[in-house]
């Protein structure tokens, strides 16, 4: 365990600055056509975020519609298996729509309505953000179009159908690597074209200012709840927090309310794919370098010519070559340690939690579990690790069956 006390004493974590920068990261790197849209959004959010009524409405929706607060759960059998620290799970998988993503879409949809926008667009990788966007659009009676990489549409078929059931139009993106980053390019193009009536719900803490700040603020409900829940249950703060990092919204949501807590170590777990030493991963913080993509300066997977590299992860939700700029900053400040879990390690953790606790985790969250179990094994039974179980794995069972060579149709007894 790193001695974080020395490292962070006196550090100011109150980013971003007025222009949306977290140290050298973040910012507003968009084409001129979108400048007015992001500026207006930043103004609207600044205005609304100081309005108590807005947050009251947000909290009420989270309580009645999402089912918050989500509990924390002591995974006793999993902890016993690690023979070390006790592992607590923040149960974002129990949220309506099955993941943390809905915290953000509820907040942004309220903002969209406040701004008088009638049409929502979103990008999605695993489909969780797309589902969460389609869900709030249905609830508020807004039009919704979701851009999704053609590759991901194949990997996440059940979520595609859910979005359609909810009334959203799902548009396959065939350009580039046909995954999340290309879906984001397409959503940016749509926004630039329909800027008057359209609100773009970015699903993570990346993108131009104010998205990294705004999405963090909406997701910070995770860490605020978790902090008081664990204090109540154990009488102390945990020794460590663990969360998976793709764009990084569930991680920042958990970490942010703990940043000033010197004794709490934090681990952001990136998708190490086939291994960080191979080109087949999605771990810009572990193995990338700073650059500019999708509106912000941040660590990226980029080659020496500045082309964005294709990424690989078993989990569509982590398959993104960038990461939220605040994570880049927290890495440089050494406040959070960024590490990787491979496809194989994530898959093992997926099965382990399923068998030991009766909870099927999302493949994204399985990366966090893989690291947490390893970390726990090196700690003592009096210590506590809090893991963000950011989503449930129902959406992944078909992909897991396929990976493991099982015929999903014959297992379920349903012909396909």
């Amino acid at each position, binding site marked *: 365990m790193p001695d974080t006390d020395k490292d962070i004493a006196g550090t100011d974590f109150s980013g971003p600055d007025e*222009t949306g920068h977290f140290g050298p990261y973040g*910012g*507003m*790197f*968009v*084409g*001129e*056509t*979108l*400048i*007015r*849209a992001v500026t207006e959004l930043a103004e609207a959010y600044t205005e609304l975020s100081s309005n108590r009524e807005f947050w009251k409405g947000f909290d009420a929706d989270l309580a009645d519609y999402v089912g918050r607060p989500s509990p924390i759960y002591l995974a006793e059998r999993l902890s016993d298996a690690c023979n070390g620290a006790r592992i607590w799970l923040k149960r974002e998988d129990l949220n309506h729509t099955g993941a943390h993503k809905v915290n953000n879409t509820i907040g942004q949809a309220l903002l969209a309505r406040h701004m008088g926008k009638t049409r929502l667009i979103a990008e999605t990788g695993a489909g969780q953000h797309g589902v969460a966007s389609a869900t709030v659009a249905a609830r508020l009676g807004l039009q919704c179009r979701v851009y999704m990489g053609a590759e991901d549409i194949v990997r996440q078929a059940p979520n595609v159908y859910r979005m359609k059931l909810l009334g959203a139009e799902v548009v396959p993106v065939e*350009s*580039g690597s046909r995954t999340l*980053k*290309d879906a*984001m*390019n397409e959503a*940016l*193009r749509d926004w*630039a*074209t*329909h*800027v*008057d009536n359209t609100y773009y719900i970015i699903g993570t803490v990346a993108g131009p200012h104010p998205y990294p700040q705004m999405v963090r603020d909406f997701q910070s409900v995770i860490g605020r709840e978790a902090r008081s829940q664990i204090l109540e249950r154990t009488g102390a703060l945990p020794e460590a927090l663990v969360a998976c990092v793709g764009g990084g919204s569930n991680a920042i949501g958990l970490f942010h309310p703990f940043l000033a807590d010197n004794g709490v170590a934090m681990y952001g777990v990136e998708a190490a794919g086939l291994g960080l030493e191979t080109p087949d991963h999605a771990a810009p913080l572990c193995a990338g*370098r*700073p*650059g*500019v*993509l*999708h*509106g912000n*300066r941040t660590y*990226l997977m*980029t080659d*020496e*010519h*500045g*082309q*964005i590299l294709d990424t690989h992860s078993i989990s569509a939700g982590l398959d993104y070559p960038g990461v939220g700029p605040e994570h880049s900053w927290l890495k440089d400040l050494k406040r959070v340690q960024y590490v990787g879990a491979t496809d194989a390690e994530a898959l093992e953790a997926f099965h382990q939690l399923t068998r030991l606790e009766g909870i099927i985790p999302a493949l994204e969250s399985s990366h966090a579990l893989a690291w947490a179990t390893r970390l726990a094994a090196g700690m003592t039974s009096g210590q506590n690790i809090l893991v963000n179980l950011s989503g449930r794995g129902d959406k992944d069972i078909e992909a897991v069956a396929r990976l493991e060579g099982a015929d999903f149709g014959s297992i379920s007894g349903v012909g396909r």
Partner: protein
Amino acid sequence: MSRISQCAARASAQGRGLLIPYLVAGDPDFDTSLEIMHELVRQGADMIELGIPFSDPSSDGPAIQRGVERALAGGANLNGVLELAAKFRVGDTQTPIVLMGYLNPIEIMGYAQFTERCARADVDGVLVVDMPPAEAGDLPALLSGREIDRIFLVSPTTTAARAKEIIECTSGYLYYVSLKGVTGAALEDRESVAENIVRLREWTALPVVVGFGIRDVETALAMSELGDGIIIGSALVERIGQLPWASGRKADCISEAVALIGAVRQALDAREGTGELNS
């Protein structure tokens, strides 16, 4: 006076609208791009915008996206673009070259090295689509130090106050984006473009050129009347992509692909000959 300013001044003195084609450098390969550039000049281009291929062109429509994908498939990168510009300059000392692209390749090369390489290649201007002036860091100062023009965009959504700030940072020419959307989409109505350009002219003596939706001779003529010149990108890139390179002599194919530029040149000159300019 920079090569771009000289070129614009000459055109203005002759009462002639600037014609600026855009192509993706390295689409489908650098040798072909070089031939296309010379052919563009032969058919009447005043300057050339050379697109730097980038894997994630989020401000571009399908035509230029496909051009970029062709260039990347052929192994194009920023080094190659700079070499192409330098090679072009060997055969053409007159025509200004503007590099247009996204920030990441420049960021990864480093602003100082990029500027140095541009200067050595005798590049005349740089336009970075996703780098608004406020995020430009020391790049404008570096470029200015080597007398390379800094070109920025103004769009229909740009506020008056912001347009004035952008003008302060701009040299060479001001690029007016004639639509809300990506390259190659449908044009805004002519009246609003006209209004905005009249407004811009009150604030700057820089040439104002119009781009983003000009597909044919007709729209070229209409837009050219409103500003000091026009940029044609997607329509040209589409033609480069559609050519049957296997059949016929390569030079003929190229000449055919560029014929739109020649046709626009003729139409512009014919109209200007009848004294309709600035009517």
